[in-house]
C-alpha cells in the first residue's frame, strides 16, 4: 500500500534503526515495513507462523520450523532486528550470533552435541540415518579438537565460522 510508508515517522524509523544497530538504511526500513504489513495480513502488529508459511519459498526451507520459533509473533522492531544479521553491513560476530541462536534452541548459551545433531536432522531429513549423522559429527568434532561431550559457546562459533568468512547477505529491495 502506498500509505504504509507515510505511517512511519522519522522518529519511528530512527528508533528502529537504533534497535538494529544501524544495519539498515532508512529506505530499507521503509521497504521492510511495507513487506511486514503485507505479510501481516490481519494487521495484528505481528506475523503469525501461518502467515510466514504462506510464503512457499519459506515453507519449503528445511529450517523453516526451527526459524519459526525465533520469528513467530515478532513485532516490527524485533523483526528488523532479526533480519539485521543478513545486512551486508553486519559483522561476522553478528552473523555468527544468529547462527549460534539457531543451534541453541533451548537458549542456554551453549550448544551441545545433540543440538547440532538436531539441526543436522532438519537439514538432511530421511536421507541420512541417525548413525550416519552421529558418525559425521563425531568425526568432524574430533578433528577440530572437541569431543562428543564438549559444549560449544558463542566464542567457539565466532572462532570456527569467523575465521573463514560466512556469506550471509540478503538485499532489501528498494523501490
Amino acid at each position, binding site marked *: 500500500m502506498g500509505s504504509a510508508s507515510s505511517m512511519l515517522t522519522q522518529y519511528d524509523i530512527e528508533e528502529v534503526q537504533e534497535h538494529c544497530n544501524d544495519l539498515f538504511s532508512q529506505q530499507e526500513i521503509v521497504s521492510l515495513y511495507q513487506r511486514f504489513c503485507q*505479510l501481516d495480513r490481519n494487521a495484528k502488529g505481528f506475523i503469525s507462523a501461518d502467515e510466514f508459511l504462506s*510464503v512457499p519459498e519459506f515453507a519449503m526451507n528445511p529450517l523453516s520450523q526451527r526459524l519459526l520459533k525465533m520469528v513467530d509473533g515478532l513485532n516490527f522492531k524485533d523483526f528488523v532486528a532479526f533480519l539485521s544479521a*543478513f545486512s551486508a553491513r553486519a559483522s561476522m560476530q553478528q552473523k555468527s550470533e544468529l547462527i549460534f541462536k539457531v543451534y541453541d534452541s533451548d537458549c542456554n548459551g551453549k550448544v551441545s552435541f545433540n543440538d547440532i545433531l538436531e539441526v543436522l536432522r532438519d537439514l538432511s531429513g530421511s536421507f541420512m540415518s541417525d548413525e550416519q549423522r552421529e558418525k*559425521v559429527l563425531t568425526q*568432524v568434532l574430533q578433528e577440530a579438537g572437541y569431543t562428543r561431550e564438549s559444549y560449544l559457546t558463542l566464542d567457539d562459533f565466532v572462532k570456527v565460522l569467523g575465521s573463514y568468512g560466512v556469506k550471509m547477505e540478503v538485499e532489501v529491495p528498494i523501490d
Partner: protein
Amino acid sequence: MSSPGKLNSSSSELDLDRPNIEDYLPSGASIQQEPHGKLRLRDLLDISPTLTEAAGAIIDDSFTRCFKSNPPEPWNWNVYLFPLWCFGVVVRYFILFPARVLVLTIGWIIFLSSFIPVHFLLKGHDKLRKNLERCLVELICSFFVASWTGVVKYHGPRPSMRPKQVFVANHTSMIDFIILEQMTAFAVIMQKHPGWVGLLQSTILESVGCIWFNRSEAKDREIVTKKLRDHVLGVDNNPLLIFPEGTCVNNHYTVMFKKGAFELGCSVCPVAIKYNKIFVDAFWNSKKQSFTMHLLQLMTSWAVVCDVWYLEPQNIRPGESPIEFAERVRDIISTRAGLKKVPWDGYLKYSRPSPKHRERKQQSFAESMLRRLEEK
C-alpha cells in the same frame, strides 16, 4: 497415440492436477557450486546458505509478488491537480456510475426478455436456439464491457468454431472472460463461484457449453476431464477457453500452467491479455474483495483499457512432453503481453507446498555431506 491404459491414467489427472514444481525449478544442486574438499567442523556448522534463503524469502518472494494488487500512481498530489481530481471523483461517482448502472440494467432487461423465451420456446430447434443463445451471451458481455467503458483492442484473427482446438489465456480477473466472450462465445472451464456469479454460471453460461468444477472436490476431476474431451471433439460446440494458470495473477507475472489443456491432443491457440493500469488495476484479488466489489471498482473508474492478442496456434512437437509444451505456450503469451514468468503453482495460494520440495533440498545436502566425508 498411446495405449488405452496409458491414456486413462493420464486423463484422470487431467487439468486440475498439480504439476510438479520440480519440473520447472532449476535443480538446486546445479545452480549452487558444489562444495568440495574434506568436511570440517565449520562446513557443518555453517548453515548460512539455508538461512540466507529463508531470510530472502521473508524479505521478498516472487510468489507473493504475483498476487499483489498495484495501486494506481496517485497524481492528485498538488494543489493545482487536487481540485481537478475532486471534479473527476464527482463525475465518476455521480454521473458515470449511474449512467453505467442504467446501461447494465437495460442490457439485462433486453437479455433476459429474449433469453428466457428463446431458451424455453425453442426446445425443438436445437441449432437455432444454440445460435441465438450464443449471440445473446455475446450481447450481455458487450453490455458488461460497456459498463466499465472497456477500451479493448483486439489484435489478430478472430477465433473460429472448429473442433480439435483449445484457447488458452493468461488470467487476471473474471473480466478476462467477459472481454473475450463479447467477441466470441467461448465455452470456458472455471471454478464454480458462490453467490450471483454462481447463479449466472449454472443457468446462462451453461447454455454456451461452459464447464464448472470445484477446486476442493476430487471427484469433479474425472467428470470434468470427460466433459473436456467430449467437448473438443464436438463439431458444433463453441470454442473452448481455458485459463491454465488456474488462478488470477496480477498481470505482471505468469505462474505455471496446468498441463491439462496441453494433453488434449489438439492445437492450442494462445491468447495474451494485457491491461493498461492507467485508470484502474484490473487484478481481482479474490481474497480481499468480492467480485461485486471488484465490478463496482471498475464501474467507478474512467475506463478499463486493455489489449488482446490472438496468437498463432501451436501444436505439440514430436518428443515434447505436455509440460514442455505448456511452458512453450506460456513463453509465447508472456513475451507478447510483457509478463514475467515465475516457477510457481498458483494453487499454492490455497495450500502449502508438498514436503517433496523440502525433501529434495535435504537429499542434496545429505549427499554432499556423505560424499565429502569420504574425501580426504
